[in-house]
């Protein structure tokens, strides 16, 4: 019991050590280089943590198996990108978009430093939400098996469209030259740190929203239907509606995360959204961290993404090329084994989900809610004996 509790902090420390010590060693003690490396990691970690919280709302709360996270990721990223990217100027570059200049509802309010980015994030969230809603309509009662295939399909389809369709998002070459928010207002050397702070705030907001949503009567219904849909329906709950809500809410959060991925990357190609990076990695983060727990989602994102990134440093150590060239792929296998082993040995993950649901119940009961005192007989809403 005690050993299990140690596992989480140990893994976090191990990850942090790998993230700091490996690049430090490889660069021969270049502290500022290592610092930049860690900051870069921090940005991607925060984006992915938001993403995993989105997945957690779908999978962890409602038991909805979205195997096509990459589809939502791609859609959100491209929508946000099209909002802020300047219009195509080169005849070899073709895409729709350049909405930023059009986006000028109130001339006094308009500022290309931040407003298009807010609009892009909202649009990305909305687009992902709509995609989620469409998938929910498409899949009979969101049955997990049909949904699994439909989501995989949507991810592949969207990637195919982005690659093949001429004049949409510039195919293979993708979007380039995407600006970042407040880019011109903040000194270049401080910009990465600004992004970390910004994303930490976004993550905090998303986390609080997700926590409040689940530790509530809404979360209670989701917990119930995850366990037994039939009994939940017999209790008068519209199972499908609740699942759809969770699916859409998760998708919106994914869209928000995806938009920040775009602003950070400043360039997108369809290959960024292949199923391994785009879907599986997020699944591993959530499963390892603990499905159903938002803290777990964040811890999982940190540990998995940290080890994933840091282990790439190993390739630069001197060793036969036959081995070093294979290290990136050995990571795939280890990632898969880590994932399956977690499911077999510790399905609750590093941070198991709370057993209690509504925070209001705890408060009521904690206040010494009367056990034996019957309800006031003339309270209109109470049960009449």
């Amino acid at each position, binding site marked *: 019991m005690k050993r299990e509790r140690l596992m989480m902090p140990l893994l976090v420390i191990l990850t942090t050590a790998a993230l700091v010590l490996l690049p430090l060693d490889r660069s021969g003690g270049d502290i500022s280089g290592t610092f930049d490396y860690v900051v870069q990691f921090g940005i991607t970690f925060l984006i992915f943590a938001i993403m995993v919280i989105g997945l957690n709302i779908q999978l962890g709360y409602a038991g909805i198996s979205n195997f096509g996270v990459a589809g939502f990721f791609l859609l959100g990223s491209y929508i946000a990108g099209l909002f802020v990217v300047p219009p195509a100027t080169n005849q070899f570059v073709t895409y729709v978009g350049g909405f930023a200049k059009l986006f000028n509802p109130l001339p006094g309010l308009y500022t290309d430093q931040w407003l298009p980015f807010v609009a892009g994030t909202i649009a990305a969230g909305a687009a992902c939400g709509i995609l989620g809603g469409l998938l929910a309509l498409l899949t009979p009662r969101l049955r997990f098996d049909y949904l699994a295939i439909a989501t995989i399909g949507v991810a592949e389809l969207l990637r195919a469209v982005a690659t093949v369709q001429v004049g949409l998002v510039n195919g293979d070459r993708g979007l380039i030259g995407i600006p970042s928010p407040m880019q011109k207002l903040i000194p270049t050397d401080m910009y990465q740190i600004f992004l970390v702070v910004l994303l930490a705030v976004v993550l905090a907001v998303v986390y609080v929203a997700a926590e409040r949503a689940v530790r509530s*009567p*809404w979360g209670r219904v989701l917990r119930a239907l995850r366990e037994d849909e039939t009994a939940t329906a017999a209790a008068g709950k519209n199972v499908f509606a609740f699942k759809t809500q969770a699916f859409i809410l998760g998708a919106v959060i994914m869209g928000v995360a995806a938009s920040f991925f775009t602003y950070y990357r400043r360039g997108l190609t369809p290959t960024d959204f292949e199923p391994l990076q785009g879907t599986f990695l997020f699944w591993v983060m959530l499963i390892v961290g603990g499905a159903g727990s938002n803290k777990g989602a964040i811890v999982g994102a940190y540990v998995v993404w940290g080890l994933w990134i840091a282990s790439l440093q190993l390739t630069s150590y001197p060793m036969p090329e036959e081995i070093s060239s294979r290290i990136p792929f050995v990571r795939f296998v280890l990632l898969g084994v880590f994932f399956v082993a977690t499911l077999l040995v510790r399905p609750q993950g590093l941070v198991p989900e709370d057993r209690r649901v509504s925070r209001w119940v705890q408060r009521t009961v904690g206040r010494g809610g009367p056990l*034996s005192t019957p309800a006031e007989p003339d309270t209109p809403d*109470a049960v009449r004996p």
Partner: protein
Amino acid sequence: MLNTVEPVGTPEAVTAAAPILEVVEATKSFDGVYAVNGCSFSVRPGTITGLIGPNGAGKTTVFNLITGFLPLTSGQVLFEGTGITGLAPHSVVRRGIVRTFQIPREFKSMTVLENLMLVPHGQIGERPWGTWFFSKRVAQDEDRIYQKAVEVMRIVQLERLRDEFASNLSGGQKKLLELARTLMADPKMILLDEPGAGVNPTLAKQLMKNVESLRADRGITFLVIEHDMDLVTQHCDPVIVMSEGRRLMEGTVEEVKSDERVLEAYLGGQAVGRQTGTRN
């Protein structure tokens, strides 16, 4: 909004009132095999109506058809005179019919209290935005539902187990929990699927006593599938007998017990004597 039962439940009204539930020519086939075949019966308000019959007579299927868990192949279900045919399960619950299951389907990872607080319809906190923006109203809602749950737990005597996880309850306690859960939905009518099965006799008696008093105090109508003839004899009137997917007859327990056709149906089906003895 809660206890909407009108004085229909008073004894004078019982005989005069129109049936609360009517099943008209209900038919259900699974790949050409008819589980229910042209079954018609009605239930008068304020009664505890028994639904008996040999195994495979289609009793549970009828429950599933009434409550929307299975779509009818043909036929109709009317509740308080309006059709509820083809409604989704949750809509049926909102009309006032709630069911239990033969094998209790409690939410194992939730406490007894949470199992009950889940049920009431239209909670503000059941919308994610409700919990984000109206937390005060949600808290009031939760207080109210909590009081209601406490009251219901008192009725079925589960107060002591308030914070116990449902997976730790005994078989009989789970049945009580299911009954309690139906009460949280303010039902006009409750369908009980074998309340006595797998329950020790004392608890079964307590459960049926609860049923009797709920009928008397709140005018809730019950339709009860039961194999234990002692329980049926003591509590059910009238009794509907089903056989081979249709209604065989209806009458008082005495009428049913002395009816040739009923005897034949039970003898025809394989499980004979067992059905009439006490089952545990």
